[in-house]
């Protein structure tokens, strides 16, 4: 049984893992902040959130990078660092693998969908409520 207090600590741990600005935390540091051994923390995190802390962190960084590529003109290197990655090589490789295209190609693609500069194209925030409209015929 997961006690409410542990549930809250896990969501706080998830917030720490998603942190990309100023300082980022290693899984070990986050486990310590949660008051669990890294082994126990990773196991429980995966059982509750369906992904490991490392995967959660990577998702958050990729989301941040996608956002920056969409709404700013910052260079790919700047985006890489600001999203919490430390190596441009790793960033480019992981981005291409997960998103299916290179960071610059992604930027071009979303820019072509943009109606107003600096604004996320609505195609990228379909989600939930708009899917309720049903598939296009």
């Amino acid at each position, binding site marked *: 049984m997961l*006690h409410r207090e542990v549930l809250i600590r896990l969501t706080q741990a998830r917030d720490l893992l998603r942190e990309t600005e100023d300082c980022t935390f290693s899984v070990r540091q986050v486990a310590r902040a949660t008051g669990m051994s890294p082994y126990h923390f990773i196991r429980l995190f995966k059982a509750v959130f369906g992904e490991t802390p490392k995967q959660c962190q990577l998702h958050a960084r990729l989301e941040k990078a996608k956002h920056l590529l969409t709404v700013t003109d910052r260079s790919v290197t700047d985006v890489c660092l600001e999203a919490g990655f430390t190596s441009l090589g790793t960033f480019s490789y992981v981005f291409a693998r997960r998103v299916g295209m290179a960071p610059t190609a992604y930027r071009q693609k979303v820019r072509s969908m943009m109606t107003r500069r600096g604004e996320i194209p609505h195609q990228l925030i379909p989600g939930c409520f708009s899917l309720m409209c049903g598939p296009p015929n």
Partner: protein
Amino acid sequence: MRIKLTSVLVDNQDKALKFYTDTLGFKKSKEIPVGEFRWLTVISPEGHADVELALEPNANPAAKQFQEAMFKQGIPITAFEADDIQAEYERLKALGVVFTMAPTNAGPVTIAILSDTCGNLIQIYQPSHD
């Protein structure tokens, strides 16, 4: 007018489909591509075949905020009925599902709460016998 559809927000549709079918035991009903996502629904083999649950992406920032706030407060996003809640609890626990509440008598129903691994808490309940 009829109620035939309900939905839960999920952080990843692939992961959600796996959990809702392989673990919870529902069956995939519809899978229609909609842009980057899918109109994805499941049905319960134990329930009405035309009552569907949509697994909707939480890609909308408002959806994410709502989902996380409810989770942090420990509030289940929806509830499913079980014929034998204790047996479901044991079965799901054996599959590694994390519960935040074991089957607990709450008067007219016995309830339990689990994490769906997609960002939600889900309640399961069994009505008490008359």
